């Protein structure tokens, strides 16, 4: 007892923390999640640099820097605590870079970063509150503002560390019938930095799925819907419409399906909601690609579905445990 063993050390009650249960926390933090996604982007970044050379490095760096500085500048301006270290601004920067083409002028990159971080995110109160994917807000904003710049793509030149100034159209803009499947898998086609190498994007997507950072329902429903709709269109009229494989492997579909549509903040939380979300993205993308004025519809589709997300979440809440069975012998 206490008299026999006075040397026993007991906790100092004044240094005990009181807080609500639970008193254990799982390991993942926002920072960890963000940097895992950054790591998942790495293969696509490497592929982009391989194909587009120094210009790709420049675009990516500019975007990341502008995002980080825009976020920090805003936080300073409205006197909020610094948030760039959580990694979300860096991730947005990389994603924005992947959505631009290699030869994008420096000022467009900077403007894009500011649009994404301030208009798309900080005006709403920062991470977690933005209803739209900030990167897509920036991309669509730039696309509407500078359609010329945003739709001229450099032709990739494997191994050449400088852009030769030759431009190429995205395969979606070319006449159907030509097949690029092998080139597209590797990434040897025109397009934005992140739109070219399907294999690199698939590796990244696999990483995200492995760490359970994205819900598999979204990319599956998204890509599946595009495949089915464009497939039917291609079967009906192969002259006018590309084969579904072209649709899947080209443009920002893989990038969008794995990295943009799955953004946690702006996609539904429920599994059922994710199916609907993915299906909606796929449907709108296909509509715009097949009949719309823009050759590419992924950004618009995701942005539109972002707006639908609160409604989807509301409509797909599953019945709480204990609501499923009626009470026996009671009205």
């Amino acid at each position, binding site marked *: 007892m206490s008299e026999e063993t006075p040397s026993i050390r007991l906790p100092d009650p*004044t*240094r*005990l*923390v*009181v*807080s*609500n249960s639970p008193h254990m926390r799982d390991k993942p933090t926002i920072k960890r999640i963000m940097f895992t996604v950054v790591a998942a982007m790495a293969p696509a970044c490497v592929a982009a640099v391989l194909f587009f050379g120094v210009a790709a490095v420049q675009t990516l760096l500019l975007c990341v820097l502008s995002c980080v500085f825009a976020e920090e500048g805003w936080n300073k301006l409205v006197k909020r605590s610094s948030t760039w270290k959580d990694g979300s601004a860096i991730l947005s920067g990389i994603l924005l870079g992947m959505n631009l083409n290699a030869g994008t002028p420096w000022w467009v990159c900077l403007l894009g970063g500011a649009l994404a971080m301030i208009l798309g995110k900080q005006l709403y109160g920062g991470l977690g509150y933005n209803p739209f994917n900030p990167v897509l807000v920036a991309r669509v904003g730039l696309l509407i503002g500078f359609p010329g710049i945003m739709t001229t793509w450099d032709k990739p030149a494997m191994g050449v560390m400088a852009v030769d100034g030759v431009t190429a159209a995205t395969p979606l803009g070319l006449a159907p019938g030509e097949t690029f499947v092998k080139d597209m898998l590797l990434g040897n086609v025109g397009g934005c930095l992140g739109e070219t190498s399907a294999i690199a994007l698939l590796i990244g997507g696999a990483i995200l799925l492995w760490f359970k950072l994205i819900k598999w329902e979204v990319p599956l429903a998204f890509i599946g819907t595009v495949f089915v709709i464009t497939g039917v269109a291609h079967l009906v009229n192969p002259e006018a419409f590309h084969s579904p494989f072209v649709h899947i492997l080209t443009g920002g579909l893989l990038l969008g399906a794995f990295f943009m549509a799955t953004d946690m903040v702006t996609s539904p939380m429920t599994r059922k909601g994710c199916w609907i979300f993915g299906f909606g993205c796929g449907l709108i993308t296909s509509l715009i690609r097949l009949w719309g004025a823009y050759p590419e519809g992924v950004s618009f589709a995701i942005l539109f579905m972002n707006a639908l997300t609160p409604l989807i979440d509301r409509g797909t809440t599953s019945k709480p445990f204990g609501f499923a069975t009626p009470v026996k012998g009671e009205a």
Partner: protein
Amino acid sequence: MITAIIAVGILGAVLGVVIGFVAKAFAVEVDERIEQVEELLPGANCGGCGYAGCADFAKGVVAQRATPDQCPVCSSEDVVAIADYLGISAEEKEKMVALVRCSGDIPNTVRSLYNGVRDCRSAVLVAGGAKGCDYGCLGFGSCAEACPFGAIEMRDGLAIVHKELCVGCENCVAACPKDLILMVPAAATTHVYCNSPEKGAAKRAVCKTACIACRKCVKASGEEDHMEIDGFLIRSNYENPPAAELVEAAACPTTALRVDTEHAKGAYQGASK
């Protein structure tokens, strides 16, 4: 020209008949007096009257379920105006203000380390909150948030009522999970800022400004009966409230006895241990 007049005229007549018919079929009675009373009310929707906002209160007043003076915000002239409008008599009532019966700000109290939602009603669900004293102000400002008139200031983790801004709506009373807030006559100026029924030593262990029931103030008030003794706690007798001079005469050793305006200015320091 004629055709135009006739066409528009017929059109108007037809539409008028339809609307008239529908208006009759779907008629709803509205008492105009309700709107008038609502105009006269302050429109703060503070709920201090016990009704859900001013519109609801106006309905109650017109239906004679409530009396105009139940509105804590209305000045007496407003009350008379409403009463005159409805042709009922108005009674004068004494103005009441809120009193936070605690003086334990951060420098004067022992606190436990608390990690969680910074809101009194949430904090009190976890280990009784963040202060050593079970009865004291938690200092997360739920009352200040509840006050529609900005009369409560949070200073050093203690809620302080600015009497001149308080209209007596009692929203803060319901907001405090520790039942610390008492409505007292605005005329009373001197209060004991403590609400702990614990023994003196137990109180002193956690707070430097607790009332330790030394009864100096009771003695100083002499025969006048200004103070009430309630176990280990002394209160002002609000039937016969003490004057500000009592504070000096009593020389409260813990400064729990205070004049409200001076308290709001932060003029008191806790007793050194």
